[in-house]
């Protein structure tokens, strides 16, 4: 904590102190016995692991389970190194500590092309950012980074713990540790003696943490790579699983809100007297805007339904504010106009960049667009807080417990040390729960009704109209072609708002500033097709619409632009889209092989009658995915029957989790590709609930097949990577089937 404060201070003053710090070795992420709170009858082995008297292995969990299987995936890493069965693992929320900060997601935010990852510049930047990241306690579950980030620290913690188990048993038996081994969660001696983990608790207290650890050779993995059952499933089929909305505390009250209906509006006055007279109502409060949330009036009552009913009796007068005329159709027209002009930030340039277009026999160009999108997690936003004796306790489904703690402390006007954050299961995240807008509301209401705990629950309508949307984006892609219509230059210019600066200004207003944002161009500049000349420029177009991280972020629309355009170039060259892509990947064997694998499994070129296939290949979050979609069109509607996914994510930790994430990401991406569109009119979001913002249902869901090409090394991301390629794969199939090139999302056929 001190080191963090020092570092941030040094960064803030742009200081020379940084120089001294940079000569220190990177901070270890092992932690020590003091990292975890002491527990009677149990012994901490390091910052990540504890052994209980009953023989359970407690794995400390710094990441949030939102369906992606991270509880199971991370536990597998520790269990593997320890040779403890997964069934003996018990999970416990990690305290907020720098060892759990997410370093990988910071490193992955650097704007380097994967081809340049081994360059001196990229490696130096990655080293520096990783070192900074180790000082920050940024516990973020996002960016498909959890396994990538924990791959070494969690296994090192497991391996160190294993060495301690052996040493503890050896001391009890007075034999060399080298004669002992851990098998199925018990320590065994070559002579036949055995000790259960729980029997080692006392001896483990005397064993020092090892100074060096040796990781297992991946060839000896017994658990990693297997389809181990998820740890969270049994509770999720019996109703026992507890999400944020399920928190129940003695004397707890419930709050329903009415937020300001227009962006940027303010509350002029309100009258809650009539509501206060209704049964069960405890309090009517006005809530200010903070951390991105709109100002609101709130009713607190003894059930949420009563609070929601009473809200109708509250009179509130709003000043609609400066954006009451905001209209997203008008905004898109402005953004399209901005495509014609200069300006913007060039994130990437190779060869002669845009200038090389002058050498082309033909310049092929096309404009694309994508709308705002809501997250629509199944669990509406909610937060529970209790303020008593100067201490604030929060229960929240959140992807960012440490940021949430800071936001809550700021809202309460107390030191972050007096805030306790309890992370529940998340009923979906998809980036929405990286935000903390619902936190100040709960904190202020908890203060109003202190010491009673209060649970704030948003309605679906509030969730949909007060989201942080995937930015709307427009792009112009151009390629310079040679005499054979093969592209040798790639030039993109895109216009959209930027998520990262907005996010920072909400979470840490003191750090608000304009800054380049890699997410605006990811998916446009970082793909592996081989062109001698490349230039990718982006113009940030600010608008009143709040934007946020949405599953796969910039890739979610930029993959549609890139992979549709590649397909157009193939057809322009009268080439098969699959063969054409292979030609552009001559020096990228990993990508080419994966594409070939997808084509093989899909039976490329052999679509059933009445259907067409479309292909897309996309790399994101350290993983490459190739998809072939099989599509038909009937009565003007696009129907997706089958999606074959080939995945290269390096080491596969759990193939079943990968398959689940592909199935989910395809459905998520298809909902957006076929239906998803948020529009603003008169400063308000027009879509209010699922009937106006439809998502894919059972009857429309395709069969998704997942095929893995494991490649060893650090695991790539999995949670988001299946989403980017599905929209272009479908659009490319629609073109084959109908001759219509759909360049705007959602995909709408001309009748």
């Amino acid at each position, binding site marked *: 904590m001190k080191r963090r404060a020092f570092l941030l201070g040094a960064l803030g003053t742009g200081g020379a102190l940084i120089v001294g710090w940079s000569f220190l070795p990177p901070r270890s992420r092992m932690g020590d016995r003091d990292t975890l709170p002491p527990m009677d009858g149990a012994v901490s082995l390091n910052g990540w692991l504890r052994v209980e008297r009953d023989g359970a292995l407690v794995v400390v969990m710094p990441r949030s389970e*939102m*369906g*992606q*299987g991270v509880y199971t995936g991370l536990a597998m890493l520790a269990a593997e190194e320890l040779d403890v069965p997964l069934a003996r693992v018990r999970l416990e929320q990690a305290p907020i500590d720098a060892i759990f900060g997410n370093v990988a997601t910071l490193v992955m935010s650097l704007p380097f092309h994967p081809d340049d990852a081994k360059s001196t510049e990229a490696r130096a930047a990655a080293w520096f950012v990783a070192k900074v990241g180790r000082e920050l306690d940024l516990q973020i579950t996002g960016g498909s980074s959890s396994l990538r980030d924990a791959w070494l620290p969690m296994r090192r913690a497991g391996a160190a713990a294993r060495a301690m188990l052996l040493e503890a048993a050896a001391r009890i038996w007075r034999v060399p540790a080298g004669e002992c081994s851990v098998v199925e969660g018990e320590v065994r001696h070559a002579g036949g003696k055995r000790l259960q983990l729980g029997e080692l608790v006392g001896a483990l207290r005397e064993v020092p943490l090892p100074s060096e650890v040796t990781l297992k050779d991946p060839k000896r993995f017994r658990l990693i790579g297997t389809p181990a*059952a*998820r740890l*969270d*499933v*049994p*509770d*999720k*089929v*019996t*109703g*026992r*699983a*507890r*999400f944020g*909305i*399920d928190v*129940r505390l003695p004397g707890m009250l*419930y709050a329903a809100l009415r937020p300001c209906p227009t962006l940027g509006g303010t509350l002029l006055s309100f009258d809650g007297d009539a509501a206060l007279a209704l*049964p069960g109502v405890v309090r009517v409060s006005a809530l200010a805007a903070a951390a991105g949330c709109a100002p609101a009036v709130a009713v607190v009552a*003894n*059930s*949420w*339904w*009563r609070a929601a009913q009473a809200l109708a009796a509250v009179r509130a007068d709003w000043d609609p504010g400066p954006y009451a005329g905001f209209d997203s159709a008008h905004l898109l027209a402005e953004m399209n106009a901005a495509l014609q002009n200069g300006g913007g930030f060039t994130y990437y340039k190779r060869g002669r960049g845009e200038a090389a277009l002058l050498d082309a026999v033909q310049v092929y160009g096309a404009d694309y667009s994508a709308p705002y999108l809501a997250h629509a*997690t*199944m*669990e*509406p936003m909610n937060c529970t807080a209790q303020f008593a004796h100067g201490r604030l306790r929060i229960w929240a489904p959140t992807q960012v417990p440490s940021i949430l703690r800071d936001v809550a402390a700021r809202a309460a006007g107390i030191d972050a040390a007096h805030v306790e954050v309890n992370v529940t*299961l998340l*009923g*979906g*995240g998809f980036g929405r729960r990286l935000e903390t807008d619902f936190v100040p509301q709960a904190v202020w209401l908890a203060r109003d009704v202190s010491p009673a705990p209060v649970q704030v*629950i948003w*309605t*679906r*309508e509030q969730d949909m109209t007060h989201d942080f949307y995937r930015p709307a984006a427009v792009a112009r892609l151009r390629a310079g072609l040679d005499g054979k219509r093969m592209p040798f230059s790639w030039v993109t210019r895109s216009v959209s708002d930027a998520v990262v600066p907005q996010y920072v200004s909400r979470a840490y207003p003191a750090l608000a500033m304009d800054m380049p944002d890699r997410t605006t161009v990811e998916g446009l500049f970082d793909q592996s097709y081989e062109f001698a000349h490349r230039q990718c420029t982006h113009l940030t177009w600010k608008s009143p619409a709040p934007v946020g991280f949405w599953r796969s972020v910039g890739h979610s629309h930029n993959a549609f632009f890139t992979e549709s355009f590649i397909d157009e170039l193939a057809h322009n060259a009268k080439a098969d889209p699959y063969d054409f892509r292979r030609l552009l990947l001559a020096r990228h064997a990993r990508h080419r092989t994966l594409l070939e694998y997808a084509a093989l499994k899909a039976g490329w070129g052999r679509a059933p009658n009445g259907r067409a296939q479309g292909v897309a290949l996309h790399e994101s979050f350290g993983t490459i995915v190739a998809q072939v979609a099989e599509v038909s069109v009937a009565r003007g509607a696009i129907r997706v029957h089958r999606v074959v996914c080939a995945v290269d994510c390096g080491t596969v930790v759990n193939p*079943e989790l990968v398959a*689940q994430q592909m*199935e*989910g*990401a*395809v*459905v*998520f991406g298809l*909902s957006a590709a076929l239906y998803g569109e948020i529009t603003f009119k008169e400063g308000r979001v027009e879509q209010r*609930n*699922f*009937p106006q913002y439809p*998502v*894919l*249902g*059972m*009857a429309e*869901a395709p*069969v*998704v097949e997942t095929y893995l090409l494991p490649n060893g090394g650090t695991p790539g991301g999995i949670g988001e990577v299946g989403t980017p390629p599905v929209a272009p794969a479908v659009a490319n199939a629609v073109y084959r089937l109908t001759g219509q090139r759909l360049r705007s999302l959602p995909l709408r056929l001309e009748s």
Partner: protein
Amino acid sequence: MQFRINGKSVQVDADPAMPLLWVLRDLLDLTGTKFGCGIGACGACTVLADNRAVRSCVTMARDAAGRDIRTIEGLAGDTLHALQQAWIDRQVPQCGYCQSGMLMAAAGLLAQTANPSDAQIDAAMTNICRCGTYQRVREAIKLAARSARRSP
């Protein structure tokens, strides 16, 4: 008001217009049934009323009283329901939030149709899942239907 929930009679001081969902969640602490949309569109709040799937967010307390209500907490008997076991075998849930409603909708389907076709599954299972578990839900329903036939 008098309710019959998961085989037991319970007396609750509820407004007759209060949706069953909030009776279950806020008055009886049966939190397995979820709030998703409030308009009966997403199915997260599905429970059984007299063995038929209903959406509890749009079912008023007065209409639920006197009917035999079954929630996810009461789906298992001494052992898991065939659907719950199939859900585990096929590793259906991801975030899990919609799964109580999915299971209850599936239970309603199997109560009416022991061996549902794909078209019958499509017609009955209109619940929304943002994690995209549909394919596994379909497989698990078929698996449960098969296992229920084997051990009636």
